[in-house]
C-alpha cells in the first residue's frame, strides 16, 4: 500500500480524484493506523469499520462516475466528535447520560459533508457535553495525546494528531478543541459564531459554541469550513453573511499583540518565547505587528465562565430520565427519578457547571445577565480594536496543563487554561491555532490568531503563509509509537 501517512487531506483528496488512490485504500490505511495507535490514544468512542469500508466503495463509485457534487475532500477518511448526531448512530456527547442514545436525525454539518463524499471512520471522545480543559472529563475515558499519553486530548484532535483521521469536526464551546490542538501539533479553526449550523450538535453552551475543524494544515481546515458553513434553515442563528473567500496579501497585514496576555502572571516563558518568535516570522513575511490593549480584559474570563455555566445548566436540564437517556428505574416518585437519574449519569465536573449555572442564573445573583452586559462591552471595545488591526496574535494557553493524573481541581484548571481561548467564545469571533514549535517538556506549542467577525479569510491567509514557510505542520509521522 502507498504511504499515505504524510499526506494532507487536500493532497489525499487530489490523489483520490485522480484515482491514484482508491477511497477504500484510504480507509484501510486509517484503520491500520488505528489498530496500532488506538490502544495507546483511545481517540475513538466508536469505530465504524464496516460502514467506513462500504461508504468508501459508494464514494468510489461516485468518483469513478465523475460526480460533480463531490467535494475536493471526497473519499478522505475523517472523524466526528461524538457530540455530532448521525441518524440512528449512537451519539453520547461524552456522557453516560446518553450512552444508549440513537438520535432520529443528523446534524446539518454531517449532511453537508456526506453530500460531498465524506467517509466517516467513527465518533471521537470529548469532554462530557464539551465542558472541560482538553477532553479529560469524557465519561468513557479520555483520548490521549500521541506525543505523550499522560495528557488527555479532545478525541477529534487526538485522531488527527495520531494520523488516524485526515480531518475531524468537534465542538468548540469552551475552547477545549483549540487547547487540545495546540498541544498536539495540529491546526484548528473555530469559525465566527453563526457561520456553521449547530443543528444536531449536542448543546452545552449555545452562545459560546461553534463547530470547529481540526486538520493537519490550516488549508485543510479552510477547505472543510467551506463545505460546512452557511445559512441553515434548521438553525436560525446561522448568519446570512457570506464569508469572504479571497485570501488577502500578507503585506500590510496588521496584527495586534495583546500585551496583557504575554505579561500575565504564570505565563510559561517557553510558550511565550515560541509564540513571539513565530510573530517575528510573520513580520518577516510582511505583516505589521504592534501591541494592543484588550477591552475590559479582566472581565472576559469571568463573563465567559458565567455564561458557560448558565447555558450548560439550562441546556442539560432536559436530561431528566424520562424520554431518552439514562433513567433510574428503581425509584418511587418523580423527584427521585430526576435526582437519581442525574446523580448517577452525570459526571462530577458537569455537576459543578450545572450548580454554578443555577446560581449564576438566579435572580438574586443575576451573574448571567451581568455577564451578557460585559459581553456587549467587550464586543463594542473590539469593534474599535479591529479598526486598527486585522487580528490578534496570542498563545493558546498560558502554560502546559497538568497531566491527567495530577489535576487538583478540574474546574479551576479549566478556568485558568481558558485565559486566552475565552475571548473568541465570548465575543463569537473566529480563531485559528497553528503549531509553532516544541515545549521543553516535548509537547508541541501553537499560537492563536483571533479575527474580527467573519474575518476567517485573513486568519487563514496568515496561518497558511506561516505554515508554508515553517513546514511544521506535518507532524504525525514524526511520532511513532
Amino acid at each position, binding site marked *: 500500500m502507498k504511504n499515505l501517512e504524510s499526506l494532507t487531506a487536500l493532497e489525499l483528496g487530489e490523489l483520490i480524484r485522480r484515482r491514484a488512490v482508491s477511497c477504500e485504500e484510504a480507509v484501510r490505511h486509517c484503520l491500520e493506523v488505528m489498530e496500532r495507535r488506538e490502544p495507546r490514544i483511545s481517540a475513538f468512542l466508536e469505530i465504524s469499520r464496516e460502514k467506513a469500508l462500504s461508504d468508501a466503495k459508494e464514494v468510489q463509485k461516485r468518483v469513478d462516475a465523475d460526480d460533480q457534487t463531490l467535494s475536493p475532500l471526497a473519499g478522505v477518511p475523517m472523524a466526528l466528535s461524538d*457530540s455530532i*448526531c448521525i441518524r440512528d448512530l449512537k*451519539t453520547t*456527547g461524552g456522557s453516560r447520560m*446518553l450512552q444508549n*442514545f440513537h*438520535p*432520529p*436525525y443528523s*446534524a446539518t454539518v454531517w449532511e453537508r459533508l456526506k453530500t460531498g463524499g465524506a467517509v466517516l471512520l467513527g465518533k471521537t471522545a470529548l469532554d462530557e457535553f464539551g465542558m472541560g480543559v482538553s477532553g479529560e472529563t469524557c465519561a468513557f475515558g479520555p483520548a490521549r495525546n500521541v506525543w505523550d499519553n499522560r495528557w488527555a486530548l479532545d478525541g477529534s484532535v487526538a485522531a488527527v494528531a495520531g494520523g488516524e483521521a485526515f480531518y475531524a469536526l468537534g465542538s468548540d464551546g469552551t475552547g477545549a478543541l483549540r487547547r487540545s490542538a495546540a498541544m498536539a501539533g495540529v491546526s484548528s479553526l473555530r469559525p465566527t459564531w453563526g457561520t456553521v449550523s*449547530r*443543528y*444536531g*450538535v*449536542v*448543546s452545552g453552551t*449555545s*452562545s459560546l459554541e461553534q463547530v470547529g475543524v481540526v486538520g493537519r494544515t490550516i488549508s485543510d481546515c479552510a477547505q472543510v469550513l467551506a463545505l460546512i458553513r452557511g445559512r441553515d*434553515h*434548521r*438553525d*436560525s*442563528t446561522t448568519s446570512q453573511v457570506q464569508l469572504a473567500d479571497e485570501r488577502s496579501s500578507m503585506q500590510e497585514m496588521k496584527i495586534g499583540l495583546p500585551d496583557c496576555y504575554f505579561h500575565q502572571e504564570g505565563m510559561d516563558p517557553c510558550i511565550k518565547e515560541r509564540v513571539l518568535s513565530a510573530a517575528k516570522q510573520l513580520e518577516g513575511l510582511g505583516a505589521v505587528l504592534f501591541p494592543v490593549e484588550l477591552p475590559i480584559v479582566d472581565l472576559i474570563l469571568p463573563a465567559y465562565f458565567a455564561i458557560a455555566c*448558565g*447555558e450548560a*445548566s*439550562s441546556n442539560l*436540564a*432536559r436530561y*431528566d430520565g*424520562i*424520554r*431518552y437517556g439514562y433513567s433510574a428505574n428503581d425509584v418511587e416518585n*418523580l423527584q427521585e427519578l*430526576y435526582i437519581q437519574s442525574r446523580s448517577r449519569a452525570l459526571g462530577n465536573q458537569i455537576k459543578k457547571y450545572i450548580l454554578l449555572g*443555577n446560581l449564576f*442564573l*438566579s*435572580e438574586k445573583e443575576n451573574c*448571567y*445577565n451581568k455577564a*451578557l452586559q460585559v459581553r456587549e462591552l467587550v464586543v463594542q471595545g473590539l469593534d474599535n480594536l479591529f479598526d486598527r488591526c486585522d487580528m490578534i496574535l496570542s498563545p493558546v494557553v498560558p502554560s502546559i496543563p497538568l497531566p491527567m493524573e495530577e489535576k487538583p481541581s478540574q474546574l479551576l484548571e479549566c478556568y485558568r487554561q481558558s485565559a486566552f481561548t475565552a475571548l473568541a467564545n465570548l465575543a463569537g469571533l473566529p480563531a485559528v491555532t497553528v503549531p509553532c514549535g516544541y515545549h521543553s517538556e516535548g509537547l508541541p506549542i501553537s499560537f492563536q490568531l483571533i479575527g474580527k467577525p467573519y474575518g476567517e479569510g485573513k486568519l487563514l491567509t496568515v496561518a497558511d503563509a506561516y505554515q508554508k514557510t515553517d513546514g511544521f505542520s506535518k507532524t504525525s509521522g514524526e511520532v511513532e509509537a
Partner: protein
Amino acid sequence: MSWEMVAGVEVHVELATKTKVFCGCANAFGAEPNTFICPVCTGMPGALPTLNRQVVNYALRAGLALGCDIAPQTAFDRKNYFYPDLPKAYQISQLSLPICQNGSLEIETKQVTKQIRIRQIHIEEDTGKLTHHPTQPYTLVDFNRCGVPLLEIVSQPDISDADEAIAYLENLREILLFLGVSDCKMQEGSLRVDLNVSVRRQGSKEPSVPTELKNINSFQAVGRAMRWEAARQIQVLEAGGKIQRETRRWDDANNRGIVLRSKEEAEQYRYMPEPDLPVLVIDHGWIERVQRELPELPREKRIRYQKEMGISHQQACTLTGSPQMAALFEQTAALCRNPREAAHLIAGEVARLCTETATRPEDLKVDAKKLAALADMIDSGRINRTVGKEVAERIFRLNVDPETYVAEHGLAMVSDPNVVEAAVRRVLREQTKSVADYRNGKERAFGYLVGQVMKSLKGKGDPALVHRVLHQLLDG
C-alpha cells in the same frame, strides 16, 4: 367603610396556526398521543427552535386590534423549570422584550363603560399534557400540545368587579375569534384564564397583596372565583389579618380556592435570553402589512350593519355572534336585494336553528345563495314570512333549493283578491261569535279572524291583503 376589588386577568390563547411555534409539526387538537412530535418539540439533544412567522403575524394582529404598541425588536427568553410535560426543561417565552405592550379594550357592563388597559401580549410555547392514571401509580405524557403557539394577554389591574371581568373576557374572546387567530375554546383549553385578585378600602390607593387564581374553566366560574376570593380577603383584613402572596387553584364544584403554593415556595424560573433564537426585528412594512389585512372587528360590523343596512341593534348583535354567522350574513346580504330580509332570516331562523340543533359555529354550513334567493322571494312577495321561515328551516336542515321547494309544495303567496275575498267571506260566515265580539269592540278578535283566514289559505295568504279585505268586509 366599603371595599372595592382590584383585579387583573391573564389570558392564554392557543393560536390556530397550521404548525407549531418552533418546529414544523402539525398544530392540531385531539390526535392520537405523540403522533405530532419531532426532535425539536420533544427537546432532543442538539435540536434547535426556528420561529414560525405566522405566529408573529397572529400576535401582531391581536396587538394591533387591541391598540398595542408593537416592539421594533422582540426577543425570546427561557423560563427554566423541571416538569415532565416540559421536555427541554425550559419554556421559550418572552420576558424582557414582549412583542406588544400598552393596549386597551373597552368594556360595557350594566353599570359602567370603561377601558381596561392591556399591559402586554407575548408569545410562548405550550407544554405537553399529563394524564395521571386513576388507580395505577403512573402518569402518561402526550407531547402533541408541546410547542403549540400561545399568546399570553396580560391586563392591568383595572377590573373592579366580576361583571367587568366577564365583559372583558367576552370582548377579548370575540375579537380573537374574528381575527381568526384562535378558536378560543375553554373546554378544549385553547383559552385559559388566570386571575390576580386584591381588594382595597374605597378611596384608598393601596390594594392588598394580590392572590393568583388558576384553573378556571368558564367565564361564569371567573365571576364566582373573583367574588369568593375578594370576600375571603375582606374577611381576613377586617379581622386584622394580612393577605399572603399565594397561588390558588379554583375548585368550582366546591366553590373555593385551594392553596397551591405560597410565596416562600414561589418558583425560581432562572430566566435567561434564549441563545438559540436571534432577536426578531419587526419593521414598519411588516406592521403595515398586518394592519392592512386586519379583518373588520365585530364592534365595527355591528355599527356598519345598523348604519348602512338599517338593521336593528339586537339583530346586529346576533349576526356577529360568531365569525361564521357574520360571514354567512354578509355573503347572503351581498347576494340578495334587501339585506334586512337576510338579517331577519339569519338572526331569526338560522340562529334559532343553530341553538336548537346545538350546531357549533365552525360546523355552520348553510348555502348563502339559497338563503339569498329565499330572502328575495319574501322581499318580492312571492311567499310570505311564515312560509319563508318554513323554507329557511328546510334549507338549514336539508339544503333544499328554495325555488324548487316552493314550487313543489305550492307555497307561493296567494295574492289574488278574489281568492282572498272568498276565504274571508267564508270565515266571516262561520265565525259569527268572533265577528260579534269584534263589532262589540274586542280588538283581539280581529287577530283571531286573520289567523282563521290564513289557515283556510293554508298559511300562504298575502298578510297585507288579508288584513285589508278583512277590514273592508268587517268595517265597511
